[in-house]
Structures are given as structure tokens and as C-alpha cells.
């Protein structure tokens, strides 16, 4: 990969849209609520008054520590178009994941990398960043055509966080209690699934109705079934961007469960999801040296 060119966000957006290199530009704008940014989807102008609209929207583009959404999720909406998209380090891994799984075509993508020190946790007073950001191993995009900021330093991280170590050592009763508590909060709105770039099944198992796979009642077992199945589908695919946690209206904390799966995949297969477009995801291939301790 050649070194990405340093550019200004608004300049590159205007250039890509006016030259027609991009049909759609996906970035961020300030939202109406404090400490939040909303997605801003700008289309290539097809008429003079659309041009003015485009210029106005480009002027509203921002990138700062409010930009929490993983915009890669929107690539599924514009599959047949040339799309320019702003990605943070974590989001860039989702792009790589979609490239590996052949869900997007690299030649249709213009990737605007945004080095990021972490996004502000709008649920906390003050300027704390999200836990997923504190533990983020990829502050700089792993794939990009352009960069809209200088690369930021990558802090050293422990292999396993003290929090995860504590959970692994906890008694089954204690772990069950935590899982039950998190699942009891879930209202099955599916925001986590719908925000996840890796959740793109045309018909999700949760929406299967002939026959029905899972219930939708307030019994926590229904939420457990949904989340456990979703977790299994994300094994070796979840990049840890934290979109599911940030977007949950009920503050269900799925992070430790995803982190646990991710660290297992790293330990057993030496694989980190969304790092190298040419790599084969472990659950999509077979190797003679695969971990097989579970076969008795």
C-alpha cells in the first residue's frame, strides 16, 4: 500500500463529488444533542440546485472526538455505487472485514482515513473516551486512500485487560449473574445488530418466521438466545469497534463478550479480524494446524 495522501476533509469531499469520482460521500456532521455527531450522506449533484445543496452539506462535514458511529455499516446501502467514506482506525478494520468477505469491491471505495485518539463517551459527564477506545489497538486506519490528520501514537496495551482476566477467573455463578443482568436490560430493538457492519445477513435468524427461531418476549432467555447466536456469528469477525455498545438505548454492555471471543480467536488462530484484506478469516478456511483440542 502506498502512503495515503494528507488532505483536508472538506476539500477532498468537494473534489470527489464534483469530479464524479464518488457518487456518495459518507461522513459526519454535528448532531442536535450535546457531544454527538450524526452521519452525513452527500450525493453527487445531478442538477444546479443540487450542487448548492452539496456545497452546503460539504461545509457541514466535521471530524472530531464526537464522531462515534461506525459508518462502514452504510456501505451495505450503496453497494453498486462509488462511495467515499470517512473511517477511524476501528472502522477501517470493518472495511477490511467486508473486503475479506467480498461484500464490497475495493475499486468502488475511496477510503478517507481519520486517525483517532478515541471518541468521547457522551453518557459520561466530562470528556472520558469509551472503554473500547481506551483499549483500541488500531488508532490509525489500517487501510486508506487519503488521511485527514497526522497519524496518532498507539499506546501499549496489555494482552488481556484486567477486567477480562477478572471475568475469566470469576465463578460460573458470578458470570451467569452478570450475563443475566445485561440480558435483562435488552428490549430486542436490534440496534446492536443493525449498527454492526459485520451483521449483513439478508434475513437474520432473529427475523426468521417460518419457522420462528427465537422468541421476542421479555423473558431474558429470549434476549440471551438472540445475543448468543449473534455472538457466535461474530466470532473471528468482530473487530471491537464498539458500535453495538455505543448505540444501545438500554446500555446493554456486550463489550466483554465480544472481547472474550476476539481474544480467543487471536490466541487459538493468531488472527485479528479486519487487519489484512488478503488474509483468510479462520472460520472461513481449514488449516491442518488449526486448534483441535476440543475434538476428543
Amino acid at each position: 500500500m502506498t502512503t495515503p495522501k494528507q488532505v483536508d476533509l472538506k476539500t477532498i469531499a468537494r473534489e470527489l463529488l464534483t469530479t464524479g469520482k464518488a457518487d456518495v460521500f459518507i461522513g459526519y456532521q454535528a448532531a442536535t444533542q450535546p457531544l454527538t455527531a450524526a452521519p452525513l450522506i452527500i450525493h453527487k449533484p445531478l442538477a444546479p440546485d443540487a450542487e448548492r445543496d452539496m456545497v452546503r452539506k460539504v461545509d457541514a462535514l466535521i471530524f472530531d472526538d464526537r464522531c462515534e458511529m461506525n459508518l462502514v455499516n452504510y456501505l451495505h446501502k450503496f453497494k453498486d455505487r462509488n462511495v467515499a467514506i470517512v473511517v477511524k482506525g476501528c472502522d477501517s478494520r470493518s472495511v477490511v472485514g467486508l473486503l475479506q468477505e467480498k461484500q464490497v469491491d475495493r475499486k468502488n471505495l475511496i477510503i478517507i482515513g481519520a486517525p483517532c485518539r478515541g471518541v468521547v463517551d457522551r453518557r459520561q459527564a466530562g470528556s472520558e473516551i469509551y472503554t473500547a477506545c481506551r483499549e483500541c489497538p488500531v488508532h490509525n486506519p489500517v487501510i486508506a486512500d487519503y488521511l485527514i490528520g497526522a497519524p496518532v501514537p498507539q499506546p501499549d496495551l496489555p494482552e488481556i485487560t484486567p477486567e477480562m482476566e477478572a471475568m475469566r477467573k470469576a465463578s460460573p455463578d458470578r458470570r451467569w449473574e452478570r450475563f443475566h443482568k445485561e440480558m435483562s436490560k435488552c428490549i430486542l430493538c436490534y440496534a446492536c445488530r443493525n449498527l454492526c457492519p459485520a451483521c449483513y445477513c439478508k434475513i437474520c435468524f432473529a427475523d426468521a418466521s417460518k419457522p420462528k427461531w427465537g422468541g421476542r418476549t421479555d423473558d431474558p432467555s429470549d434476549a440471551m438466545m438472540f445475543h448468543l447466536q449473534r455472538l457466535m456469528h461474530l466470532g473471528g469477525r468482530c473487530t471491537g469497534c464498539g458500535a453495538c455498545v455505543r448505540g444501545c438505548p438500554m446500555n446493554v454492555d456486550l463489550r466483554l463478550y465480544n472481547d472474550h471471543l476476539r481474544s480467543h480467536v487471536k490466541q487459538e488462530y493468531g488472527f485479528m479480524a479486519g487487519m489484512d484484506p488478503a488474509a483468510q478469516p479462520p472460520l472461513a478456511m481449514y488449516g491442518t494446524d488449526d486448534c483441535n483440542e476440543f475434538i476428543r
Partner: protein
Amino acid sequence: MITKEIRIIPPAEMPVFVGALMQGRKVLAPTRNDDGLCVFAWLTAPEHADWACEIPRVPPKQAFLPRTEVLFRYHREKGKETVSPPAPPEPQVVLGLHPCDVQAVKVLDTVFSAEPSPDQPYLARRAVTTLIGRGFADDESFVFCRELGIDPMDNRDCDAFLVPLAAGRMALEILTDKGAALKQAYERFPPAGAGDLAAIAEARKLSAARITQPLDMAAIQRNLETIFNSDLWDRIHEPCVGCGACAFLCPTCHCFDIQEETRGMDGARVRVWDTCQFDLFTRHASGHNPRTSQKERSRQRIMHKFSYGVGRFHIPFCVGCGRCIAVCPAHNDVRQILKEIHDLAKTAKPQDRV
């Protein structure tokens, strides 16, 4: 509304009042969950009612439209089937409703009592419910009920109403017979004095003055009728991820699905919350889906709230609580959508009419 009487409850006595309400009744009130998130939940202890909560994340609709409602249970044996109705609902109090949430209950009442098929499970729960509203002097950043003409100090449609006074004292206004039936819970508190009455009147006056120019909901409804085919919907749906957060946490959204929960030879037919934002909501048994994409689904949400509700029941299905703004993971703001609809309709072409 004629106020029957007004009692003054000192802050330290609020748990006594709530505790008395809990005698023989279930009480749904604003409380904080383990994460500190403010929600409407069934109280297990009087001191759990949280008076610092303004618009609890989870609305009070669960009191009448539980997330899961058993319609009937059944048991099958060889050649024999028995069906049993659920237990009748117990008396309940919904405490501390913001006036916009009270208006939301009115929306639900209107829909679920509509002829020709009034909804029996809903009406049964509603009949055993006493509504105690609560006035608010300030609004959270996402609340826009004043723009819909809803005054956060208005006690209409409540059985009783709490007006916050200085130093955490609350004036309890008794407004209906259902409210007066709570006598045992409030008779120990002193009646309001002349100073309290003046303070209540002043709070109401200040609040009413802040409703300057409400949105013209009738005009918005008329405008919506002209833009069904507008390309506005192409833009509005784009950032929407199609989850159900806005609808599930909306105090007026009331669509449901009916499902079977079976175990062996026993089962229950239940209704659960559903939303027009889900693909499955309109998917036919044939597999055909008349709302093919998020565009149609996003349009349905706006149309149902601001056009169909007004057209059929003469009441908007939005009360301006702003929960959808607070919870939307894509940070969509319904106020901006309304403004766009308002501005665009002026240039809509007649052929867009439906």
C-alpha cells in the same frame, strides 16, 4: 379540571406517600436501574422512586401495554384442549408522569378504545390504573412538547398531579374520584396554604408563558398528504439503520405482534411489542413485503405519527417527549424532519397527492 383538594408533601415524606400508594397496588414510577439509567419500572421499595428523573428512558406504556402480554394459556391432551384466560390485572398507580407522557396515555386510550373493536386487555389494565402526573419547570435538551402545545405544568387527564414547589416540597392536586380514592395515602399531609396556592399559580403562569408558538399540527398533516411520493423520503431514510429503538421507547407507539410460546403440551398466546421499522412487521406469509425498504418504513413512521393519527383520531401520535431523539443510534432528530416536511410541502406538486 376542578381540583378537589391540594395537599403538601415535604421531601422527606415522599417515601411515606409512595409507600402508602404501594399498599394493595402496583406502582410504576421513574426510578434508576443498576446502570443509573432513569426508567419507568415497577417499584419494589418506596425510596426507589427518583424525583430527579425527568423523561425516563423507558416510557410508562408498559403499564397498559406490557412488553409481553399473555392473551390466554392453553393445554393439550389427547382429544382435549383447555384454554384459560390470564388473571385479571391488579390495581395499579402510574406515578410521576410528565404531562407529555400523560398525553401519550390519551393517545393510547383513543386508539385502544376505538370502535368497532375496543381492545379488552388494554382497557382492563387502564380501568384499574390511577394516573398521577408531575409538573416540570425545566425541559431536557431533547424535549419539544411545548412546540406541540403541551405544557409541562398542565394537569389535564390526570387523576392526581404533583406540582414541584420550593425546597423539594410537592403539592399533590386531587383531580378525579380515582384520585380521591387514594385518600388513605395522602390524608396525613396538610392542605395547601395561601402561599402554596400562589406558588402553584405562579409556576403555571411561568410555564404557560413559555409556550409561544406551537407547531401547526393540522398544517403538517395537510402537507404530509401532498408528499407521499416526494424524494424527501429518499434522504430521510438514508441515515436510519432500521432498528426499533425509537418505536420501542416511544410512549405512543403501540404496534404489536402475536406469537405462540409453547413448551411441550402447554402454551400461551402472547402479544409482544413490534414496530413498523422492522422488515418482518409487514412481511406477508407469501414472502411478499409491501414495504420493501427502509424508505417505506421510515415514511410510515412519520406518516403514522403526524398524518394518519391526526386524520383518523384528530390527535397527533407524537407528544414531543424527545425519547427518539435521545436514543436514536444514528442521531436522527424528528424535529429536523418535521421542519423539512413543513418547508418542502410548499413546493410539492399536485401529482404527489395520494
